[in-house]
């Protein structure tokens, strides 16, 4: 089983190469950039909050959550499904809410710095703690390709979850051998060069060296490998044959 994650600004580009080369079993996708764009047009200013240790993350209040769910599951998801359908794949798109495919535990709210004070701010984000593998396997075994928008369900509400780590969780829970994370960069870059291979025990060093975006992908790779996935590849989705011939960084046990 091959689980593929697609995200970042890649989603706004022409994905013909990607659709042509599709040989995966399950697709998970994000789409935060489009959420910010449409949110602003709808008058919902995108707030980012700085945590005490200086890490910037999106504050998902109720209004943002609604836009997040709508854009990921109603716009980006259907664009990807139509792309795969047009190449003859039986794509079925839904969000992690549906059938509770992505079950999440809601974060206790996010810590934000307001002036000199640190305050907990109500937030609709969470961590994926479970996957409805029964539904995914039901679909895959009947020839369908699940296309999952990384919006999860927890404590009766939709929750914003990290796309990379959701994909890792899906890979682990469905017993996938491989997780391919396609993004808009060539791979893990250290001083401008692509790192061809990273072993599991070396991961923490790289996690400290890379930027926020790649940090999440390496954290996801770590969780996947520790959960039994054999190989995680972080590669560019823009090239020819991005799935059958990935050229980025291979992260292995």
């Amino acid at each position, binding site marked *: 089983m091959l689980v593929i994650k697609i995200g970042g600004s890649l989603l706004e580009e022409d994905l013909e190469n990607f659709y042509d080369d599709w040989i995966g079993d399950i697709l998970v996708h994000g789409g935060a950039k489009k959420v910010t764009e449409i949110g602003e047009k709808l008058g919902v200013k995108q707030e980012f909050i700085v945590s005490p240790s200086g*890490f910037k993350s999106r504050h998902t209040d109720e209004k943002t959550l609604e836009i997040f769910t709508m854009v990921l599951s109603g716009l980006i998801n259907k664009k990807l499904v139509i792309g795969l359908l047009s190449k003859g794949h039986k794509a079925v798109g839904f969000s992690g809410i549906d059938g509770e495919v992505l079950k999440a535990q809601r974060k206790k709210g996010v810590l934000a710095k307001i002036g000199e004070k640190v305050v907990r701010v109500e937030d609709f984000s969470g961590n994926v703690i479970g996957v409805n593998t029964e539904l995914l396997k039901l679909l895959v075994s009947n020839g369908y390709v699940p296309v999952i928008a990384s919006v999860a369900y927890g404590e009766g509400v939709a929750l914003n979850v990290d796309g990379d780590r959701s994909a890792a969780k899906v890979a682990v829970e469905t017993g996938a051998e491989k997780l391919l994370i396609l993004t808009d960069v060539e791979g893990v870059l250290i001083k401008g060069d692509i790192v061809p291979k990273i072993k599991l025990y070396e991961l923490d060093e790289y996690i400290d060296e890379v930027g926020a975006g790649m940090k999440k992908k390496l954290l996801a790779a770590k969780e996947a490998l520790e959960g039994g996935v054999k190989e995680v590849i972080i590669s560019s989705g823009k090239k020819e044959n991005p799935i059958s011939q990935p050229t980025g960084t291979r992260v292995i046990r």
Partner: protein
Amino acid sequence: MVEIARTGECPECGALIGLKDPLIREITTCEECGVTLEVISIEPLLFEIAELEGEDWGE
């Protein structure tokens, strides 16, 4: 702007904690026992022990 200092008891060790212009859900630490606390009421100033997950990289 007039700053209002309020005091409340640490639920862990009972020590008195003072805060200027406390905010609901403000996070602070008890100097006595070091536990991390969260403001749950301003008048009177009440705290609960803050459940803090590890620093997390949200979406």
